[in-house]
């Protein structure tokens, strides 16, 4: 592994080592670019991952203080935990389920296709599906996505069998074990899935793609990567000309360090990324870095989500095997006749006993609650995930009344469901119940949203600098050598799990960035 000097101002500093930052680091290193990768969390490995929901949560989750506001249910149920994402090398790619779906063509033109939806700040992406397709293909190859590049699908587990039988009976056409970045057979030095069932707790076999044991070690092999775990970025600095010059971070020993940089790429997930730009306010940029549009932190999206759990007369043991074991895609199209724009996916999901207790019905008690726990082995479950409407008032801001362990203002996450989100959620709940009833469910339950794992849009890309924070390459409109490299870039959310698109954008951004560096234009 390389070690670069703190005053080496020729390096690219990337903040965050997840899907965006970890991928970007490897892509740049492969092109010979020197990278300092700052990661706030510790360096774990498949060997240190824990098959225990609470212990793993303590090991991997981002638990720094955060606050919430707004009418969304998460603010009531998990007021200090708006998001279930990770603070560890590899970021949330340690925790993600592996679902790897491309955005649909119409989703990249949401404003044009959906029209002017009241109370929403829809915008077309400044790029098209055609622009993304070659990069999607590279991302799928890199990640080993099943049902692409001649990689077979995964075998379905019991939870999938229930979904499949119900889907067919309910009249759905498209149900299979999905496009998953989990090896269905050995590939690229990683083994095939052992159906362990703790995908959310870090994959102990390494069958599930994570930057932790793919991109990052590959980057280290080039001799161009300086990975610094437990390095929490505090502020991005700039010069009189307005170009960023480096990053101040708190290291593992609690000391502040200043790493100089030629380029800074921010990939801290969609809460920390805008927060860091806002924390980096200066006399020259009083509203925060790259925020002349006032859009930093706005248009926070978290996907319309919800879950349906169903009790059957016979055993299911849904916890056995891949957590997200299959998908129904029939509802993903845009069909406004359903009473909302955009679409949603239906994906199996399971929780272990401890997290089922925590998430089934937060705040719930009594026999209605215990009935579902009593029938734990006879439960099947699915997650509903769809496109939510961007709103300027759904927003990450600094809450200066509360300070984190670094003495910095904590982020507040404000969210109000748009009426389109509510209509879609109700439709999705009914659809999920229909599937399970068709499979013979005795009773079903509508589980409210978990803390957000799909945080998107807070530094969105836009053709017009007035409407967003970055351009179609993730380069900020205001500061040429400052890039957004995570899901914050998303102009709109689409219905699909976002990781594949984040990786795709990172591959694409790396090409552009290296080219600009070569031309000395940044």
């Amino acid at each position, binding site marked *: 592994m390389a070690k670069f000097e703190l005053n080496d101002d020729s390096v690219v500093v990337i903040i965050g080592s997840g899907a965006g930052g970890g991928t970007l680091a490897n892509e740049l290193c492969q092109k010979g670019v020197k990278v300092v990768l700052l990661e706030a969390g510790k360096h774990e490995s498949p060997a240190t991952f824990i*098959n225990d*929901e*609470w*212990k793993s*949560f*303590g090991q991997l989750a981002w*638990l720094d203080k955060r606050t919430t506001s707004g009418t969304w249910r998460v603010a*009531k*149920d*998990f*007021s*200090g*935990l708006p998001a279930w994402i990770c603070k560890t090398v590899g970021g949330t790619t340690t925790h993600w389920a592996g679902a790897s779906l491309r955005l649909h063509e119409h989703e990249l033109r949401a404003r044009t296709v959906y029209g002017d939806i009241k109370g929403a700040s829809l915008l077309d992406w400044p790029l098209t599906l055609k622009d993304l397709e070659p990069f999607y293909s590279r991302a799928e190859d890199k990640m080993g996505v099943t049902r692409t590049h001649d990689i*077979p*699908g*995964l*075998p*379905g*587990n*019991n939870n999938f*069998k*229930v979904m*499949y*039988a119900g889907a*067919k009976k309910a009249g759905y056409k498209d*149900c*299979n*074990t999905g496009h998953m970045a989990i090896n269905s*057979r*050995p590939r690229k030095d990683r083994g095939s*899935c*052992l*159906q*362990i*069932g*703790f995908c959310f707790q870090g994959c*102990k*076999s390494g069958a599930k793609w994570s930057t932790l044991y793919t991109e990052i070690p590959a980057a280290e092999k080039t001799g161009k990567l300086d990975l610094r775990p437990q390095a929490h970025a505090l502020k991005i600095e700039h010069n009189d000309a307005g170009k960023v010059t480096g990053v101040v971070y708190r290291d593992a020993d609690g000391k502040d360090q200043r790493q100089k940089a030629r380029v800074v790429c921010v990939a801290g997930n969609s809460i920390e990324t805008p927060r860091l730009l806002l924390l980096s306010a200066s006399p020259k940029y009083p509203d925060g870095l790259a925020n002349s549009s006032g859009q930093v932190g706005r248009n926070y999206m978290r996907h319309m989500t919800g879950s349906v759990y169903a009790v059957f007369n*016979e*055993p*299911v*043991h849904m*916890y*056995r*095997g891949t957590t997200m074991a299959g998908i129904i895609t029939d509802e993903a199209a845009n069909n406004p006749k359903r009473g909302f724009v955009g679409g949603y996916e239906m994906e199996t999901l399971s929780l*272990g*006993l*401890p997290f*089922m207790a*925590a998430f089934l019905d*937060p*705040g719930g*008690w*009594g*026999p209605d*609650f*215990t009935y579902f726990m009593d029938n*734990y*082995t006879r439960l099947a479950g699915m997650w509903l995930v769809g496109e939510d409407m961007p709103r300027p008032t759904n927003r990450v801001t600094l809450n200066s009344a509360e300070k984190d362990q670094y003495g910095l203002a904590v982020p507040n996450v404000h969210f109000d469901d748009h009426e389109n989100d509510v209509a879609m959620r109700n439709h999705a709940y009914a659809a999920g119940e229909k599937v399970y009833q068709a499979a*013979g469910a005795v009773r079903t339950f509508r589980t409210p949203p978990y803390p957000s794992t799909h945080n998107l849009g807070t530094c969105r890309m836009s053709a017009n600098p007035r409407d967003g924070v970055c351009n179609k390459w993730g380069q900020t409109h205001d500061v040429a050598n400052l890039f957004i490299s995570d899901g914050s870039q998303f102009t709109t959310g689409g219905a699909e799990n976002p990781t594949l698109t984040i990786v795709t954008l990172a591959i694409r951004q790396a090409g552009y960035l290296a080219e600009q560096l070569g031309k000395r234009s940044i």
Partner: protein
Amino acid sequence: MDFNRVTLLADHAHGPAQPRSLIPLTRREFLKGAGILTGTLAASSILAALAPSRAWALELKTLASAQGDALLQMGKVLYPHKGLPDAVYALLAKDLDAAAGKDPKTAQMLTEGVAALDKAAGGSFVTASDAKKLEAVKSLEGTPFFNTVRGQCITSLYDNDMAFAHFGYPGPSWDKGGYINRGFNDLKWLPAPSASASPAPYKA
């Protein structure tokens, strides 16, 4: 909901590595705490096999026995599970006792909460009828006391080996090689999916 629940979630996740083991079955004469809870696992309970002995005792360091007992009973009202032994509900009293030991304000809130339960039950919550108990617990819904006890139930009752055994959740699977050869797809009561929807597992 107040911030309490999330600090509780975070505390539990971070907390001292408490093995999800049985409550200590300390010999009674050595217990010197403020309170003691005792019980016996039914011989028919599958959990009896997990315990070194069917008799169990639990020392409370801050709360009195009567308070611990009331909290145990409140747990049973909130999360009633037929056949789940009191030894599991005693973990709730144990964890609340630990919280009371850490923070005098929590101790006071629990003391006042138990007093309120007794009052609502017309004297003694523990000896009241099931209907009266439910009524007493309901009358406190929304109070910080109720929220604290209910929130603690989630981690105390459902994250321990006895609960795992009772509800049929096996916990870790990595050490057993996952479920690839242990029934991940053994469901037979529904038609099997097509091979294109669900290909056969990889065989080395």
